[in-house]
């Protein structure tokens, strides 16, 4: 699986998109980010890990704390606009296919 594909899987999740929006204005620690969500802290950590792995977030050590910041270069790559459009149709068609498969009489 290539990296590019991972990036789009990363932003397919609403919580992860919300995290990106949060850190867009300022670098934040995992704790400060987690404080903005109802979800459990380990869940937020997992999201941060995914976002970091696909380079949407960068980490910076500041004393004992690790700050997460947005990687604008990677975000720009996402803005390469065809992929979200393709993904939208792919999701629709995947759904169509699974719905219509149920229509098919068993062989």
């Amino acid at each position, binding site marked *: 699986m290539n990296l590019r594909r991972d990036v789009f899987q990363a932003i397919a999740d*609403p*919580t992860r998109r*919300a995290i990106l*929006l949060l850190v867009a204005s300022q670098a934040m620690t995992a704790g400060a980010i987690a404080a903005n969500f109802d979800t459990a802290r380990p869940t937020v950590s997992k999201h941060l890990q995914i976002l970091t792995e696909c380079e949407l977030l960068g980490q910076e050590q500041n004393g004992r704390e690790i700050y997460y910041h947005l990687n604008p270069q990677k975000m720009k790559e996402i803005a390469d606009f065809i992929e*979200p*459009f393709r993904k939208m149709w792919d999701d629709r*068609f995947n759904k169509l*296919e699974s*719905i219509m498969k149920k229509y098919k009489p068993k062989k």
Partner: protein
Amino acid sequence: MEKKTKITAEEGKQDLVITREFDLPVALLFKAHVEAEIFEEWMSHEYGTTKVKKLEARRHGSWRFETTDAQGNMLFGANGVIHEFVENQKITRTFEMENTPFPVQIEYLEFEQLTEDTCRLKMQIVYKSVEYRDQHLKMPFEYGMNMAHNRLQDVLSKLK
């Protein structure tokens, strides 16, 4: 078999082509485009429910659908007329996005049987200009980011 949905949008052209192969007999793929209940199901998503207001599946018939959020607010509406209608083969229709500055688009849908159980859909969308095509391509990304933003605001307002 390559099943992924492919988009071809050549630079500087005012159309784009969406192609996709399905593990379905062509008649079922066609049915999913002309039966309101089925169309509503695959066009609905986590943020919105699609309702078909009108779907006259015939030559010179017209169609209209709406997508609303959980609170019943209209997120998206579209309508158009059908120009060509050949069962299990093709649909040519116009597509107008309501409450947007987008001019009407023309969509050519070609349904092709590959084997008894597989088929292909080719959908060509023609826009009024290159700029409108490019703008339409960008919409899902902007939409996704807006949705994330709304969600974030929901979360924040609960904390108050």
